[in-house]
Every structure is written in C-alpha cells, then in structure tokens.
C-alpha cells in the first residue's frame, strides 16, 4: 500500500487543476501583448487574480503573483532595508522587525540577512505548544518597530497563531503586519479583512496546485517595493513575464479548495484523533508536539524517544509510507528542528520526531495501515538502539 502523509511538504495536483493546466498550455500569449494572443492570456490571468482575491476576501489589485511562497516572504521582509523614504515613508524611524523562532527558513534566513544590513530583528519565543506569548509581543512593540511577521500555521507542528489579535496589537503600535499563511490558506478559513493583516503569503503547491507559483496579498495603500525589478508586470510590483500556467493552476486550486473545504476539517480531525490515539496505545515513550487544539487538523507531529527520525522515515518508506522528520540527519544540517527546539523539546526527542501530514485524499484505511506498520518499526529500531540499554554503562557514557 502507498500512503502519502507528507502533504505539508507538497501536495499532488488536483485532477481538475491538472486539466485546467493542460488546457492552459495551448495559451502561450504574453499577457502584456496587445494582440489577440496577449489579450487571451491577460483575460485569463486577471480572471485568476479575481478568484484568488475572492478566496481570501481581498480585491484584485491587492494580489501580486510571485514565484513561490518563499519569494513572497522575501519580498515583504526586504521592504525594510530600503533606505529610501520614498519607498517606505518613515521606515528610517522604524528600523526594527519582529518575527518568531518557529518561522519557515525563508523568513528566518532573510531576517538574519537583514540583521547584517542594519535591521534590528527581535525573535518571539513560543511556549511548549508553539504559541507565541502576547505579553512578550506587547513588550517588544514600540515606535522602533516597522514590521511584524508571524506565520499563521506552522508547517512542522501545525500550531495556529491568533493572527487577528496579533494584528490589532501591531497596528495599535503603528507597525505593519505580515503573516505567512502558506500552511493555513485552503485548510482553515482565511479572510484578510477579518485577520486585519497588511501582507499575506500564499503558495499553490501546498493546496493541490502547481509548484513555483505563489501570491502575495498587499493591502491597498500599504508601502511596497518590488524585490524583482525591471518590468511593469503586476503593476510594477513583480517583474517577469507572468507564469500563466502556474497562475491558472493556482486559481483552479483555490476554486477547488472553496468547494472541498467544507466538512474536510472535521473529517481530517477525526482521522488525526484515530492516528494519535492509535500511536499512544501501541507505542511507549512518545511525545506529541504542537498544540492539542489550536492546530491544523491534517498535521500530527510525534517524537519517539530512543530512535532517530531518519531511520524511521526510511523504514516507513520501505513500507510505502511517506512522512517527514525533524531529525538533523535528514536535513543535512547538524541541528534538529528549530521549531521543536523552540518549543523546549529535548534535542533527543527532536531527533526522533516524525510529522504525519494528511490531505484531501487521506482515508481511514491509510491511517489503519500506518498504525499497523509503525509500532513494529519503532520496536525494531529501539531493539538496535543504544538509548534502550538501561543501567550503568548507558548512564556513564552519556
């Protein structure tokens, strides 16, 4: 049996999206051209823009198509190193940004880079469930802060932040609010007006759309400066001939999400509970990561003590099950998941973490299959693990 439980990494194309994109391959015109080929492409791109805008409660002009979620996040953060007061009025005064320790690397590494370029970056801690502390945020906000960037749903543990409340606090202090909603859009209701954000990031491939296309919501009237220059596309906000195929794919993806989302969250939550209880009842020495309730219904992150995550991942792969791990070994770095470490999980448990991320196609049979295979694999690895040698030798050499 093949089980794909890695939907937070990426999702398979929705069949309707695939159809739409295959049809769109015939449409090769450049949306900037004035002839009929160009006009056809333009009409379709603008139609797609309306669909994406509608899906998140924005207006068309507030949607900028970009090359990925990462690009959208880079664009927003990079607004704050532009020294010109023409671009961002008053940004000279407000030269600090606030973000969290659990953001996606495309936010964290961009923030580090900004720090080298003179921006003061303040990082919010999270509690054991991955939630930020609003009091800490209140203490950090001030008239030096220009931007706050906080993800709506965390990709590793699924924890959801209260963006609405956060945005209110941020605006009260005079700063702008960005949320990376790559893992939230299409899974939980997202409405930019009720959230009250100034910028919001979307990526198509996490919602059964194509890879390499995303959208950035930029609230009307908010200061903006393009990351990629040299063209009038996207009203001068993102140069480069439009990825028409991707844009149409993204629009179809959100259209299908609007149809399929109702009822899906409850269904996935039930499956997650079955998975969670099944693991709890069949395997000892485990630790669930993330928030027990304020969390994506599709995401379950669990640590198995005494076993290393890459080994679990690869044994599961041999049984046809695809998952992710927060172990250092699988990522090529030496440190385990920065998200888990930020929640205060012990490094050993972070190395032994597995993320199951379900999706629209996940079935009860798949969950049962995982529950059948997983305990044997954990037992097998623990049997060869030094962590399970009790007594003196073990203790002495720690």
């Amino acid at each position, binding site marked *: 049996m093949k089980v794909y439980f890695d939907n937070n990494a990426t999702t398979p194309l929705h069949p309707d999206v695939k159809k739409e994109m295959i049809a769109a391959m015939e449409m090769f015109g450049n949306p900037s051209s004035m002839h009929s080929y160009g006009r056809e492409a333009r009409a379709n791109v603008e139609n797609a823009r309306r669909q994406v805008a509608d899906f998140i409660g924005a207006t068309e002009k507030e949607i900028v198509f970009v090359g990925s979620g990462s690009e959208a996040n880079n664009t927003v953060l990079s607004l704050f190193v532009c020294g010109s007061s023409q671009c961002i009025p008053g940004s000279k005064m407000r030269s600090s940004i606030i973000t969290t320790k659990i953001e996606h690397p495309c936010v964290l590494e961009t923030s580090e880079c900004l720090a080298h370029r003179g921006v003061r970056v303040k990082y919010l801690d999270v509690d054991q469930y991955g939630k930020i502390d609003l009091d800490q945020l209140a203490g950090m906000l001030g008239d030096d802060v220009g931007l706050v960037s906080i993800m709506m749903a965390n990709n590793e543990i699924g924890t959801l932040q209260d963006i609405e409340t956060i945005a209110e606090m941020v605006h009260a202090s005079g700063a702008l609010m960005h949320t990376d909603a790559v893992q939230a859009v299409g899974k939980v209701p997202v409405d930019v007006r009720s959230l009250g954000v100034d910028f919001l990031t979307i990526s198509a491939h996490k919602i059964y759309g194509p890879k390499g296309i995303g959208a950035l919501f930029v609230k009307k009237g908010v200061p903006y400066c393009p990351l990629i220059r040299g063209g009038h596309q996207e009203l001068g906000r993102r140069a480069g001939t439009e990825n028409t195929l991707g844009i149409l794919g993204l629009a179809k993806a959100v259209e299908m999400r609007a149809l399929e989302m109702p009822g899906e969250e409850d269904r996935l939550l039930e499956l997650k509970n079955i998975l969670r209880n099944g693991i709890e009842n069949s395997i000892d020495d485990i630790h669930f990561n993330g928030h027990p309730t304020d969390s994506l219904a599709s995401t379950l992150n669990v640590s198995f003590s005494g076993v*290393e995550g890459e*080994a679990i991942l*690869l044994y599961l792969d*041999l049984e046809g099950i695809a998952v992710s791990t927060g172990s250092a070994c699988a990522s090529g770095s*030496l440190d385990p998941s920065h998200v888990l470490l930020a929640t205060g999980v012990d*490094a*050993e448990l972070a190395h032994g973490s597995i993320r199951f991320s379900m999706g629209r196609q996940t079935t009860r049979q798949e969950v049962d299959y995982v529950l059948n295979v997983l305990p044997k694999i954990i037992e097998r690895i623990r049997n060869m693990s030094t962590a*399970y040698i009790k007594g003196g030798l073990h203790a002495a050499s720690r």
Partner: protein
Amino acid sequence: MLQAGDWAYSETLKEHFMNPKNILQGEDTDAFDGVGMEGNLQCGDQMMVVIKVDKEKEVITDCQWKTYGCASAIASTSILSEMVKGRTLDQAFHISPKEVAEALGGLPDHKIHCSVLGDKALRAAINNYYTRNGQEDKVKQEQVKVICQCMSITDHDIEDAVLEGARTYFELQERTKLGTVCGQCKDEAEVLLEKFKHIHFGV
C-alpha cells in the same frame, strides 16, 4: 521522467540498513571482552561496540553493536562489525572512517560524520579490552592537540569540520571560529585542513 527508487545511498548501504548484521540482543555485555561507546543522544548519534577476542592470537572473533542514529549510522556499524571479525586488535584499531565508507559503496558528504562514531567506538572497545587484561601500556589514546589557542579549537574539531563539509579555510573558520582572534594558527590549520580532506575525501 526518472522513476523513484534511487536513495541517496548505495545498494550496499541500503542492504545493511534493511538487514543489519550482528545487533547485540538485549543489554547484557558480560559475555564480551571489550566494550566501547561513543557519541550521545543529544547530538543524534551514539554507538556501542562489543568484541570477543581470541586472547592468544589477539584476534577479534565476534563483534556486536547497538546504534542510535540514522541509516548511515546503522549501516556503517553493521558493516564495521563484519569487517573486523578475524582481524587482529592492531589491524582493527587502524580501520578508518574512509575504509568503512568505501565498504558501504560511498556516503554522501554530509553523511560522513554519521559514520565516524563506529570506528571510534571500536577503538574504545579495543582499549577497554587492553585495560581489562592488564595491558594498559597498549591503550592508545586518541591524541588531541589544540591548534587555535584563542578559540581552543583542536585537531579533532578541524577533522569534524572537514567531515561536516568544510573545504576551504574560510569555511573552516565559519564552522569552528578558528583563527578569528589573533590569526597565528592559520598556517597549521591549513595544513591540517588539507590533510583531513585527503584522508577522508581523497582530494
């Protein structure tokens, strides 16, 4: 389009991962003549190697292990346990991580550090055997030499940095912070950098 199937690892490694050889069953090490353990759980890998020795010939007759670690760690301890049987203690002591990696059909660069603990644990087990048998004189210490006094970086740290991917002096500095204060350690560090690149990667 290409099909899936190719792991980042060789077939030999995959085989040793799927069917590891000589896993120590249970926790009892009393039946063995030497026990060595290296690494720690916080860092993500730890290995224990136990050996039986033919005391007259000083030849390893059995080698078993436990490993907490990734696929490369499991497979490299498994293949090491096969390689050492029949070797003399002295031969076994000199098995290098490179030999282990070669026997596995090669390892991706960033995985080499996952496999260096096996031979370290083996050397610890051999030293443990010598100690237990009143041959302390034969115990070989792993020599550690401080290269960068300012940041107290040793030759082992340099070796680790190379195993983790440092190839230039700049990368070595980035990883270890060596040479970032007075800078007088640069020449010696560069010599060691080249040496370890040669030992581990043949470049």
